[in-house]
């Protein structure tokens, strides 16, 4: 029945309940545009209200034309957070629970002269009547738990007509449904995971980069607020600092392998750097970050390999995907094409040469060569890659922006 009113969260593209939503997710369903505050007497928005101000009698009739339950109209109230709070309880709550909870969530928007629960609502008696009217006809598992208790404190205490949930040891809220074991399990699991992540994030806040001596997560731009994990040791750096150091020109007298590729603190040689928004505390966590980074790169086609038409300097140890397209050079000859000579500048630029010049630049968009240092590289190629790197650092950073390693 209530399915017939269009869900306003769905209409905004943000209904968290999906198919479990009591309201219609069908665009053809009529929206409920009646201002319930106006119906009750006072709407703070007055003429600026975006909902229809119709008289109670008319409103009721129109409301019941779209929905048999007049309280459903409340759901479309403009700012009710009830929808969100109840998603925490997950699952569709029976009609019984809905109106009272919604009153509860409406509370902050009523002028706080008196606590809302002491106020005599017009519908209050009616609701209680309904609750008392059919108390034992529903199974306990179908009854929703009290949202006040779940949020921290139920002012009704013992007299509350709803079930008070059990205390969740992690979040400290009474939000565990005593009669829904799967829901309990789910909440406990997600709660624990969230807590862990929060702790890790808190811990990460304190970590300083040894190059810029600043807290990594307090850097000014989002692209900088990332750690660069070295594969072989556990010293923390900003991703930009460690990349700048590893990418700094070898001409300054610094040795590539013994200085630049080594950890600035312990001088252990690391072959690649992994970006991460969070710092790890255990070896397993680090492995997880590294694995998910590699898995992400593995899903991106290697621009050097170019589906079998190009020659990837990292060969089989490349982190990116090497797909051989039918008809490509590798597909026809079962070996990668001969290495392309480095583009040289002449006065006469053929069209193909022009592409050769731009190709590597484009290819490096999501390929940061210095992550993938490999012994196969000659020092000249290294220098070339590093030069390309310089022009591409910003791009590669922003590319990884959306990548989140837990």
């Amino acid at each position, binding site marked *: 029945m209530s399915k017939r009113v269009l869900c306003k969260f769905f209409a905004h593209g943000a209904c968290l309940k999906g198919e479990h939503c009591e309201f219609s997710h069908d665009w053809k369903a009529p929206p409920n545009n009646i201002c319930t505050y106006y119906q009750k007497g006072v709407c703070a928005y007055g003429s600026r209200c975006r909902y229809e101000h119709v008289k109670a009698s008319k409103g009721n009739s129109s409301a019941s034309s779209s929905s048999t339950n007049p309280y459903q109209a409340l759901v479309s109230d403009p700012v009710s957070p009830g929808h969100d709070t109840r998603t925490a309880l997950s699952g569709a709550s029976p009609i019984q629970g809905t109106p009272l909870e919604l009153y509860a969530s409406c509370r902050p928007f009523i002028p706080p002269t008196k606590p809302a629960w002491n106020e005599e609502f017009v519908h209050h008696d009616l609701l209680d009547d309904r609750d008392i009217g059919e108390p034992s006809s529903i199974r306990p598992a179908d009854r929703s738990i009290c949202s006040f208790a779940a949020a921290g404190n139920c002012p009704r205490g013992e007299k509350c007509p709803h079930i008070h949930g059990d205390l969740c040891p992690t979040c400290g809220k009474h939000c565990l449904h005593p009669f829904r074991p799967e829901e309990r399990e789910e909440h406990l699991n997600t709660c624990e995971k969230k807590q862990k992540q929060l702790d890790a994030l808190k811990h990460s806040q304190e970590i300083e980069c040894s*190059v810029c001596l600043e807290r990594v997560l307090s850097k000014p731009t989002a692209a900088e607020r990332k750690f660069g994990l070295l594969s072989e040791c556990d010293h923390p750096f900003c991703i930009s600092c460690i990349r700048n150091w590893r990418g*700094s020109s070898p001409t300054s*007298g610094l040795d590539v392998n013994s200085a630049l590729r080594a950890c600035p603190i312990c001088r252990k040689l690391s072959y690649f750097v992994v970006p991460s928004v969070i710092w790890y505390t255990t070896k397993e966590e680090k492995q997880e970050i590294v694995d998910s980074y590699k898995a992400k790169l593995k899903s991106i086609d290697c621009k050097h390999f170019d589906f079998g038409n190009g020659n990837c300097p990292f060969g089989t140890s490349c982190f990116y995907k090497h797909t051989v397209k039918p008809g490509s050079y590798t597909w026809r000859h079962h070996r990668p094409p001969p290495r392309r000579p480095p583009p040289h500048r002449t006065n006469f630029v053929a069209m193909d040469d022009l592409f050769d010049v731009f190709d590597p630049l484009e290819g490096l968009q999501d390929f940061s060569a210095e992550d993938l240092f490999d012994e196969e590289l000659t020092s000249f190629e290294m220098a070339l890659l590093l030069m390309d790197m310089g022009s591409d650092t910003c791009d590669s950073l922003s590319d990884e922006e959306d990548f989140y390693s837990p």
Partner: protein
Amino acid sequence: MQASRARLFKEYKEVQREKIADPDIQLVCDDSNIFKWTALIKGPSETPYEGGIFQLAFAVPEQYPLQPPQVRFLTKIFHPNVHFKTGEICLDILKNAWSPAWTLQSVCRAIIALMAHPEPDSPLNCDSGNLLRSGDIRGYQSMARMYTRLAAMPKKG
């Protein structure tokens, strides 16, 4: 440029905070230029430099900390790894073994360590290096002590 400035500012604050913690090193930043620093270091005890106060000049490059600062002794010192005339220091961490994790403070510490443990095999001051290499420890020590007294100690009276 911005990065080096920010980092030097951090180091400056750290130095202000740790002034008392390390009485052997006194790092001072130039009033008008954060890329110019001077340091006063105490000669380590049980060496011929004991009792002397040596002045160092730091010139920090704009690429700092990706490139090492240039450090030299302003006070004359007789040491196999310090050029007698220019004060240039031969120390691997100031050249090819530099790491951005070093700070000006830690460079000072490294120089104090170098004063206590000279490396006669890569000398900038050959006279001093030859004395040590030929095993004339006494000769080296008396020369070093003399120059310490001449150049690095406040004049008496």
